[in-house]
């Protein structure tokens, strides 16, 4: 279209001539040979493959073995018999035990139950908090948020420990209630499932509040004004506008609480009693007390399989959100 069309065509023809093959090689190399990029992707990738992915293959391998009193304490899957025959010994007994045994099944069900109850608990306490922070005056938001994050930075173990002193038979809560005359004899809370609920909700509350806040603070408050302007009462506006729009935040927070709680070990171990069986705790016992590594591995993999479903859902959902952005 320009007046230089012919000249341009000339150059175009030149550019496709073999004289430029050298340049093309450089071009090809230029887009592929980027050492910086190999390092940025390669190094963390290599690390994760070696120390995060590979271990699961080994766990899988060991879950198919049988325990033995030796070092390492499990049988090999592959064995050379008489130097000539490769013998493969697979033992599915661990999985059979995990699935069929009443005790393990109860532990899995109870873990899921605790996860569910505590996720709901966190949601009930966390949602009003996140909503209040998100709608608070601008200058209050950062300090309020900091106060949510601060416990997250302090020791998890110590925060759980704090509840022992409170919930004990002669602990602070009982002393307080006795002094008020509300109860006549100390309540047995420590070493029960209730203590586990309290401890989990307490420890995981920030994980619920933060994604909820992130979601609610992005919510356009003029939507509520529009709803009010159209004659919608505040409560109905909340139920029909705010709540549906904050579903992604609710989902994110719930998964962040639910998934780790199901595999929780410290809280049921320190606060729970004999009735609060949870998978994490069983796995720990099988491994450290009973030295049954193959069974612990099988437990780990079944637990993983149970959690993969919500996890993949989370991953999908996150990448979909990013795609929308």
């Amino acid at each position, binding site marked *: *279209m*320009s*007046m*230089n*069309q012919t*000249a*341009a*065509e000339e*150059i*175009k023809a030149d*550019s496709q001539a073999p004289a*430029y093959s050298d*340049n093309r090689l*450089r*071009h090809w190399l*230029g*887009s592929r040979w980027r050492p910086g990029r190999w390092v940025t992707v390669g190094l963390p990738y290599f690390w994760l493959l070696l120390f995060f992915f590979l271990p699961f293959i080994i766990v899988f391998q060991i879950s198919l073995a049988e325990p033995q009193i030796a070092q390492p304490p499990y049988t090999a899957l592959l064995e050379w018999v008489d130097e000539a025959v490769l013998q493969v010994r697979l033992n599915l007994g661990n999985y059979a035990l995990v699935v069929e045994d009443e005790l393990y099944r109860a532990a899995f069900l109870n873990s899921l139950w605790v996860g569910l109850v505590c996720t709901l608990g966190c949601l009930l306490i966390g949602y009003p908090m996140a909503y209040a922070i998100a709608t608070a005056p601008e200058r209050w938001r950062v300090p309020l948020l900091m106060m949510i994050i601060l416990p997250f930075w302090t020791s998890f173990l110590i925060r759980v420990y704090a509840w022992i002193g409170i919930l004990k038979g002669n602990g602070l809560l009982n002393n307080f209630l006795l002094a008020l005359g509300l109860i006549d004899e100390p309540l047995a809370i420590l070493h029960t499932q209730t203590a586990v609920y309290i401890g989990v909700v307490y420890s995981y509350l920030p994980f619920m509040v933060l994604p909820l806040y992130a979601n609610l603070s992005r919510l356009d408050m003029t939507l509520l004004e529009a709803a009010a302007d159209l004659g919608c009462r505040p409560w109905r506006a909340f139920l029909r506008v705010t709540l549906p729009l904050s579903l992604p935040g609710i989902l994110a927070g719930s998964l962040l609480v639910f998934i780790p709680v199901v595999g929780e070990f410290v809280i049921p171990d320190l606060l729970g009693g004999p009735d609060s069986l949870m998978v994490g705790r069983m796995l720990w016992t099988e491994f450290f007390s009973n030295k049954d590594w193959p069974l612990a591995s099988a437990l780990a993999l079944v637990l993983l399989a149970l959690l993969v479903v919500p996890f993949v859902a989370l991953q999908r959902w996150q990448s979909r959100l990013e795609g929308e952005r």
Partner: protein
Amino acid sequence: MASLVAEGQSGHTGQGAQEGLAAWQDPTAKPYVRIAGVSRHFGEVHALNDVSLDIYQGEFFSLLGGSGCGKSTLLRLLAGLDTPTRGRIWIDGVDVTDIPAYRRPVNMMFQSYALFPHMTVEANVEFGLRQERMPKAERAERVGEMLDLLHIGELRKRRPDQLSGGQRQRVALARSLAKHPKLLLLDEPLGALDKKLRTHTQFELVKLQERIGITFVTVTHDQEEAMTMSSRIAVMDAGQIIQVDTPGAIYEYPNCRMVASFIGSVNLFEGKVFGREDNDILVAGDDFLVMRLRCLQPLSLGTPVTVAVRPEKMRLCPECQGPGDNRVTGRVEDIAYLGNVSIYHVRVSPTQVVTMTLANMQPRTEQMLTWDQEVTMTWSPSCGVVLTE
């Protein structure tokens, strides 16, 4: 600053080998920037499709088009921030296609200005010179020159977040000029300024460019801005260059309907060629309108054409009619009073409204045209452009 002016070549209209002829009109002139058959595909999206373009030394060249037309992509290819899928780019006789941005003698002023927030104004301007390993004394001198050139000497110790929009724009300009590039690329240079400042800065940019003589290539979506500043404009659409010409030629002689309606406002009449008299052709409009138009193009009878007439080329009948002029009659539907001019919308047929702009030579109270009045408008055969695309 003196050195910068000395290094540059003279002339806003490009350096021609023959006196009195602009570079692009001179077949012997060597293009300074040569873009040959360049395409850039992002997966399925073809941001640029086989674009060829020559830009001459000392030009103030504008790439004009709506968003997503590929103008910014082309600029990034010139800067080296992106590589073409196909085609090659030469700058000053060197094939730069495979040369990365940091080795090209080209600098860019970014739309967001991209001033480094953690550095002072001075350090920002100095950044490029540091990369060249220029000696410290020389560097300081050059920074001083640049800050003086753009009248921002007193801002040298400030940080970008302590500057106003206009000041930032100057710092960004100083930074991109500091290395005395062969080519300065400007991505929407005035986009972030408010309207008043923008008009002022347009003229300043042109003056600066004339003074330092560096070839400027700017990207803009604002046709007024392109018209004011450029020596030539390339109008782009859907990854292709539609027309390259001087602002005047683009306005007066657009080569297709898209360019005609993108630049300024225009009246378009559809019709078919039905005769030729000397240099004129006769066009039968769809609304039984017969038009006579200057057209040297050989067009066979029956060719469907579009006739484009600018609103200010329309005059009122009878006082202004010349011999052989076209005329059309209609009823005034709308009047927009803009002070210096008024815009009239005249319905000439059930399907066509013609826009006419008239200068307000008398005070408003004495205006002769009013709503629903029947008027006859006229325009000379040389004022309409015949478009086939």
